[in-house]
């Protein structure tokens, strides 16, 4: 039993480490930094100036929202790549042919992305404080840390789903990218949810990160456990649904590919 558990842990962490290092497609610190901060940072500034032009008087809402969305670089794009690139790099057949248990193989892909996403926000927030002179005097640090950890985890649900989609389609990356950009609208990053058109607001509620970002904004304003507990519970529930759906979808695709041999020929 203990030997079996040890094997599972070893498999989980080896998968996590190797998939993070090799399949996230960065080979130098420079390419890591540009892929992590390049688009998100400049997109944030772009939205700030766009907001300034149209008369949106709260640029800090956009700045904080975009920083809190940074874990999607790992949770959505990173995990999607680490799953989809298995086929791209020709390793899919070996993976599907191995007798290794699927749960650690699949879920292990998230571990270092969660850590990385969390550290990214931890680095970006103080930098934003310095650049934009944001006042975090009232911040509830413990709640903030809880929210950030949760945000880093909850983005992975979408990543698991989109990773499986990229196994099914050669244009999976396009779908992932489009979804990632739609999140700029739908989860309260640039525009407060209550100011979205009526037909979009319910959609936000079904997406991961919406409640997490709202809870984090409250924690930054000093809110305590009682004020954010329901939001965090909702966030955990939504994330769990997405993760279970992503894993189930992967198993279904895997099973279908074993009978039809279609996965590597797409």
């Amino acid at each position, binding site marked *: 039993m203990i030997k079996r558990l040890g094997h599972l842990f070893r498999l989980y962490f080896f998968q996590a480490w190797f998939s993070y290092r090799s399949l996230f497609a*960065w*080979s*130098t610190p*420079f*390419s890591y930094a*540009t*892929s992590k901060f*390049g*688009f998100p940072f*400049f*997109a944030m*500034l*772009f*939205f700030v*100036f*766009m*907001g*300034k*032009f*149209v*008369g*949106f*008087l709260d640029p800090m809402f956009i700045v904080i929202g975009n920083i809190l969305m940074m874990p999607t670089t790992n949770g959505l794009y990173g995990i999607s790549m680490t799953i989809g690139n298995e086929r791209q790099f020709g390793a899919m057949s070996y993976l599907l042919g191995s007798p290794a248990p699927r749960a650690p193989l699949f879920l292990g892909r998230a571990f270092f992305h969660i850590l990385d996403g969390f550290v990214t926000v931890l680095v970006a927030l103080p930098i934003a404080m310095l650049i934009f002179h944001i006042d975090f005097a009232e911040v509830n640090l413990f709640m903030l840390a809880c929210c950030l950890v949760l945000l880093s985890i909850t983005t992975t649900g979408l990543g698991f789903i989109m990773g499986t989609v990229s196994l099914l389609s050669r*244009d999976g*990356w*396009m779908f992932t*990218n*489009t979804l990632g*950009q*739609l999140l*700029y*609208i739908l989860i309260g990053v*640039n*525009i*407060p949810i209550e*100011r*979205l*058109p009526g037909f979009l607001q319910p959609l936000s509620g079904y997406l991961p990160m919406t409640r997490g970002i709202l809870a984090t904004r409250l924690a930054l304003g000093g809110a305590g456990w009682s004020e954010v507990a329901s939001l965090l519970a909702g966030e955990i529930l939504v994330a769990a649904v997405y993760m279970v759906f992503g894993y189930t979808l992967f198993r279904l695709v895997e099973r279908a590919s074993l009978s039809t041999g279609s996965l590597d020929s797409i």
Partner: protein
Amino acid sequence: MIGNFLRLGIRQMNVQLRMRVLSLWSLALFFTQPAIFSAIGMLLARAVGNTRPDLVYTVLGAGIMGMWSGLVFTSTYDIRADRREGTLELIVGSPTPLRRVVGFRSLLNILAGSTSMLAAVAAALFIFDYSFSGINIPGVVISFSLLLLALWCMGIFLANILAWSRLSGTFVDLLEMPIALLCGFMYPISVLPAWMQQISAVFPIRWGLETLQDALKGSLIDSALVNKWLIALGVSFVYYLLARWFDRKVHDHIRITGELHSI
């Protein structure tokens, strides 16, 4: 001579067009991403009570965004894709200069990207019910032509400069949004701090775009507009010369040292 030149152009652009049209990724760059950015602009405006989006910046600006994103991803990958797919040696070995092939490809990339602008104009006319009656038509035509020239010059410049290293793909992340940010694709350049406006002066797109935005708002062809056209032309020419210089370097890199494929 001219017939050969035209035939090469048509063949190159034909192949390039097929690659662009058959790629969902290109379509996302030309249409989806600009539409999302435009929607963000509209929703931000709506959040502060503006029911109608700004025609020039929020609607047509998305078209510019699509043209630029399309160009930056397609042109920067052209030579690199040939290297990856093993066709670079065949092109370099043929009597047609690589420069000419890249030039035609960049031209098609820009023309394909212009569909993004067409989509933005269609959206302005049919979705938002805007009228273009007040625009300065000759000014718009000249400015748009200069914008296309500026984009082409930057396209061939980027295609050559980014062929130098396998890591150059990462520069794309440092090009797409910063240029959009600095050149004022979806807001007037005056919104930016002065130091950012100074940096943006080195990009020909900024000047072409500024004149296009002015002409769309109905500005007359006065000395200020003509000066900006001349600056757009001059800066584009500088990029063209730089592209020629880099093209020679890349060519030497391939033919004399044979190193490009091994990078």
